[in-house]
Every structure is written in C-alpha cells, then in structure tokens.
C-alpha cells in the first residue's frame, strides 16, 4: 500500500514539476507570446494595452427578478501596476433603465499596484424579466498608449451562446479535475493559430 502511495507521489510529483515549470516558462514575461498574435489593429490593440494595467470583474448577483425591482451591478477594478490619473469610466444604460444610485461617469483616479476599487450602480428596469444591456467602458491614455476597455453586461446572459460555451467549458474543466485529467488539449482555437 505504502509502495503504491509512494509510486503515486512520484508520478504526480513529476507531473507537478513539469506542469508548474511549463506554466512558469510559458508565462515568462520576457517572451513576446504568440498567444496575442492574432489580435488586430485598433480596438483589440487598445484593449490589450489595458489588460496589462488592470483586471475587471463583474458582479451581477443582485439582479431583480422583475422590471419593477432594483438591481445592483458592481464592477471591481484591480490595478496590475501603479496607475496615474488619466483613465476615465462611463456606464451606458439603455433608455428605459432608470438610474437610482451611482455615477454614470468619472475618473478612475490613481491606483497603487494591486489596489481594488469598486464602481456600483443601482438601477430599475434591468432585470431577469427582459434581456437588456448595460456597458461599462474605461478610456484614456497610459504611457502614450491609448487604452480602451469595454464590458457588456446582459440581464439575461444565460440566453447567450457565449454563456453556453463558457458553462460547457467550466463543466468540462470540473470533470477533468474529478478525473485527475489535466491534459490541455490543443486544437484549432489555440491562440497561436488565430490570425485577426
């Protein structure tokens, strides 16, 4: 029994070392990764610039069930490096969404590295009852590079094909974890094959 456990430990240790080393190597910031190869001129270039600066997380857990209810939408911005002033944000609401609380636009302000800031809106007319959209945009310039990042929030994201794909992927990942199968299958959608 102990021998078997030791054998498992040896095999898995090897996998861990290889896996960890590979990821470390692949994420080596000194390399110009081919994963970003395909992104095109323009919007995605500007979007890419922003991804080296900050992460955006969305919280839509407090969406009303009906149009009469009040929904709360939270955006969390985490700075990946020190950010000086110069970036602004704006929310764009559909016409029939009523703003109850929060500012529709403003400056992001300065960030220290790893600092988080939350931007919250309370609205009416954005619920699970009807599919509507709210956008959150960050625009500006950082170190002479234009920055533009937009997230599109749907009140019924579950109706979309994108959501189905994400859920399928998460489910697949979960099953893989359960099966202790972490082989990353590379297929045609591997970023190095994508040319924009």
């Amino acid at each position, binding site marked *: 029994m102990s021998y078997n*456990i*030791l054998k*498992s*430990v040896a095999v898995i*240790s090897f*996998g*861990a070392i290889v*896996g*960890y080393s590979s*990821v470390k*190597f*692949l*994420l*080596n*910031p*000194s*390399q*110009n*990764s*081919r994963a*970003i*190869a395909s*992104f*095109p*001129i*323009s*919007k995605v*270039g500007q979007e890419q610039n922003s991804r080296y600066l900050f992460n955006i997380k*969305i919280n839509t857990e407090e969406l009303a069930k009906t149009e009469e209810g009040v929904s709360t939408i939270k955006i969390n911005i985490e700075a990946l490096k020190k950010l000086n002033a110069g970036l602004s944000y704006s929310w*764009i609401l559909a016409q029939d969404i009523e703003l109850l609380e929060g500012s529709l636009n403003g400056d992001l302000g300065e960030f220290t590295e790893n600092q988080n800031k939350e931007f919250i809106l309370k609205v009416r007319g954005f619920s699970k009852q009807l*599919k509507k*959209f709210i956008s959150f945009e960050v625009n500006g*310039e950082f170190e*002479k590079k*234009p920055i533009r990042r937009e997230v*599109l*929030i*749907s009140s019924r994201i579950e*109706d*979309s*094909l*994108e*959501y189905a*794909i*994400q859920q399928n*992927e*998460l489910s697949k*990942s979960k099953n893989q974890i359960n099966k*202790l199968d*972490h082989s*990353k*299958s590379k*297929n*045609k*959608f*591997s*970023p190095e*094959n*994508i*040319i924009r």
Partner: protein
Amino acid sequence: MILKKLLYTILLLYFISCEQGGGFAPSSPDSSVFQCPSTVAEIAECSATINPGASPVTVTGTAQFFKRTITSQSSSLILGAPIPAALAIKFAEVRVLNSSGTVIQCGTTSNSGALLAVDGVSSLQIPNTAGAYTVEVLSRANRAMNVSGVPGKPAFQLYTSVKNDFCKNEPHKVSANITSDGITASSPSLIAYARESESSSLIQGGAFNIYNNLVTTYEYLASNTGTVNISCLNPKLNIYWQAGFNPAQYVYPNENPSTVPNISFYIRGQNELYINGGKLGNVSTADTDHFDDAVIIHEIGHHIESVCGKMDSPGGTHNGLFRIDPRLSWSEGWGNYMGAHIVQNNLNAINPDPALSTILGAPGWVYYLDTKGYKDGASGTASEIIKISLIRAGSNPEIVVNNSPFVSTCGTEDLCFDKVDPVINPGEGHFREVAIARSLFKSTNTCASGCTNRSDYFDEVWKSIDKITGMGQSIYPFRSSVRFYERLHAAFSNSTPAAIDSILNTDEAVQRSNSADYTISGNLTWPTYGVKLVPTMTACNLEIRPRNEDTAVTDVFSDQRYSNHFYFIDKATSLPSVTSITLNATKLAGTSLDLDLILYQEGYSFVTDTAGTKTTSSAQFIKSARGSGFVNKTISSLDTLSLTMPYLLNVRAFTTGTSVSPSTQYTYTLTTNNVGEYLCPTTF
C-alpha cells in the same frame, strides 16, 4: 497520513500551476480551447440537377439581401439604416423541397440573383405535381468562377459556406413557400434582411453580406490578376457567423463572456474565418463586423495570403502605433490594404447606396473601417471604433489621440497611425502595418495627390505575393514587406514605376533593400531584414545604430528596426562547413552596450528583453551568445543544425535599463570557424 497530506499538497500545487494558464489572458499561450460537445455534419451540397420528368414546371424568382449602409455622424463613419435597394445574392446554392422536406431540385442564383438550374443558364424546373414547395437559397457555393473575360486564364472555384457555428455547421439561408398547380408555380422573392425586426433577429443579411464580400473579392481577382492561375483559391473556405455572437468566446471559453473582446479572426491552416456578430445577443450597440466590409475583407485577405502565398506572421501585439515584427506588419498591412482596396474598386457590388457615394466624395472608399452598433432612426447607438484613411501622407497620418485640439495635422504630441519619416528613419515603414497598407493602397489606386492613379498595378501586386512568382515561393523565408517590394520590382521587370518608388522612398519609409538611404559613410546601417549571409574572404562594412527604448515608437523592449539586425542563415547552400559564428564589434560613438548573437529558426517569436534584464534563455533561441561586452560573441556547434530549416541570425544590442545616446554606433564583423572567412549579406 503524512504521505496523504503530501499527496494532496502536490495535487493542489499541480492544479494551481495549470489554472494559472487557464483563465482569460491574451498573453497566456496556455489558455484553454473550446471543443464542440458534439458536431453535426454540414448538409450535403445540392449540386446536381434532378430530372423533373415530363412537362416540368419552371420556377422563377430572385434572391437578394439587405445590409446596413455606412453613414456619417459628425466626422465619423458609422453603420446606418439598410441600403435603399437590395443587392443580388450571386452564385448561391438553391434547393427546392417538397412538402415532405425532400429535396426535389437543385439550382444556383445568377449574377443578378435570379433562380436558375445548376448550370447557371437553364431554367429551374420542378416536377409537374401540384402542391406546396419551399425554395431555399443558401449562403453557400461550389462552382467555377467566370474567367472568360481573360483568355488563357485557368478556371478556379468559388467554394465556401457561411454557417452559424462550427458545431452545428448549418449554412444560413433565406426561404419562401411557393405553390404549383402542376402547370405554373408562384415566383418567390427571397430576401435576407438586415434589421432584427424583419428577420426574427437572425439578420440573414449579415450572412449574405459576408458571402457577397467573398464573391466580390474573387470576382475582382478573376479579372485583375491577368492570366495567372489562381486555383490556389479552390479549397473550401468555411466562414462562421451568427447574429449577436462573439466568436472570440471559442478562443477564450473560460472567460466571462461580458469581458471577452469582440474579434473576427482567421484560423491559420484551417481555411476558417470567424466573423464577429456582436455579443450576448446584442447587435445594436455592440461591436459587430458583419456589415464592416473592410474588416471582413481584411480577414479574407489573410485567407488569400495563406492559400495563395505564405503566411509567416508570428502574431503579437499591434495597433498601428509602433514599430513591430516585420512579418506581422506585412501580414496585417496586407489585410488592411485588401479591406480598403476591394471596397474601393467594387463599391457598386459592395455598397451601392448613392448617399454613401455622396459622403465619400471624390476619393471614394479609402478606409479601413471598424464600427460599433448602428444608428437606424431612433434605434441603436453607433460609433466609429477605427477609421484609417490609406491615402494620407506617411508624415501626416490619421490621428488616434489628438493632444493638440484645433490642429488637424498629426503633431509630435499626438498619437497617430504609424507616422513615419523616410529621411530620419529610412525603412521603418517595413515595421509598421499602416505604413505598409498605405503604401500598397497608394501604389494601386487613384487619389488627389500621392497615388500612382494606376489600379491596373494590382496585377503586379498579385505576382509579388503568390506562390508562382511571388514571395509565397518556398525559397523566400522570413517574408516581410521588404521581400514583397523586391518581388514587385521583379514583376515590373526590375523597373519599378517612379510613382511607386516615390511612395516607398519619400512618403512611407518602405525603401527597397538596395536603397542608398541605408548606407551611411560607407557602412550598411540596415541590412535588409532576412537577407542571406554568405562567406567571403573580405570584411564588409556593417554598422548598427541602437536606439534608446522608447514606448512611443515600439511596444516591446528592443527596437527591431534599430537595435537589431536579422540575417537569413541558409546552412545547406551557403554555410555547409561553418560550425561557429563570431561577432566582434567596435564602438564608434555613444553608449557602451552589449552586442549579442541569437539564432532563431523559421516560425520564431521575437524574444524581447525586460527593463534592465537580458533574456539569456528561451525555447525560441536555437543558439545564443549573450554575455557581457561586444567582442568575441560566438555561437557554436552549428554543424548540428538542420540543413532544411531556415534560420535567422539576430545581432542584438542590449538596450534596456540604460540610457542610450542617440549618437551610439558600432561597426561589427561576423566571422566563422574557417580562418579568414567573413559572413556578409548578399543581394536580397
């Protein structure tokens, strides 16, 4: 128990290490990739005439589509209402089904969208059985293109299918019900609409617009590439698009769909295009590409480059602001050019809206344009994401961020799309995709000033990129615009028209390889990117002039135009007896820097340094000599290199983490293990 804890700890570490690469991060090459839970095969092509029997009934009718036009909003161009008159759906597959859903006849649409038999000439006929039928026109074709206007030109095939997604593989279609009394049948009018309200939100007009862009591009190539065989286009091109769907979710399936950027893209080696249809079902305010003709044709341009030429693009960040890898700048510049050029020269087939012609005025369509949302009366919200005029001067290009209000020219304080200076920075256009796109466009189009006014030069452009006489040939590794313009020179019988030379030399800084601008005081300061090294017994005068790291001109550390030289190593034919190469440099002026040697192979990704830290190890490095100093840098054991693999020798000045004086200059030599032998660049 301890062993179990150890086991769990190791497993946890293993999971964490994998998860680091699993999330959405465009910079992570280990992102997970999407695979279909199940795949449905595309329905069989309806390509043969089915005998309708005696006294058949003729079905007549037309197939058309609407698209959103381009209109103006202040100084921007945006998507507006649908065009006033529908466009014909050309050469598309027609199916007639009986009430049981059985296909009882196949056909095709004509050049004007008329329903015809498979041969494209005869009438579309069905059996004389009275009843209800359904006529379908699919966004799919597999037929020979008409090359009769160019005697001697070999036939080629239009073979494509525009489908909803790559799991279901359903071609888009428009359909109509007809009735037959056994003698005559009602005439269907099949129309694909552009508005959600007219199409149950399917917007089939988007699918047929993508299809029409491809047909128009192929028709243009049929009549503008001389007698050259372009059957390289024959393989089937699968195009995937769905209204309201962002195909980037396939690439980043783990990511929250709200945050995945909208992109259209081409998959290298798969003959597949994915066109951005919006996001989360939103087409009215989201970024969409199905009516952005320049974006669609940009992607088609990548396909053309891939199947008829050779795509060497390594990818990487690019946004038209910086000097980048010349293989990437070429590929993207070509796509940008095709997006504008095909629309400009086929506006009537792509967007015949008279109001658009009025907006565009004399120059016509001269843009790469990407829009977001649409404005249709009170519906929608539209904006212009990017618009680049390709007839602007290299010294005064389109402004991205205007930091000098009230001044309309691109100043030093502004961010502009690849502003170049052919005198101060000769050749830098080869490292800038927009400069390349502008140079191509101005070389083959008409404009008030700065163009050749010769659209017929496209013939020579084609001969310069294809596999037959162009740089698609296997003898030309490390393809870039400098190779393209050499092939163009050859296509013009080594006599490039003066108007083109003027664009290259005095406008867009894409001077050809033999330009005197690269030689200063007798020293060659920019050996052509990818020029082959050959052995000689005398030294050549090579000089590198490294530049300070400047985020205003390059978005990676180490300026590929100034701080690096790149040479093609053809081991088999030029250097069979060479086992080592040594770099020795002499400082002439400026800052003391390390000069290093790095050997890459074909398909490499350029490896940068980080601020003050030299990258000494990388899987991309086949060999490297990156110690301190600038003498006796040797890479050895070159006898172990493959004789069939093209290699690239990179002479690199290590410039990060220090202030590099503008006067910095080094001459250098490259010598081999053979006594007295030097390596020098040969004719490009």
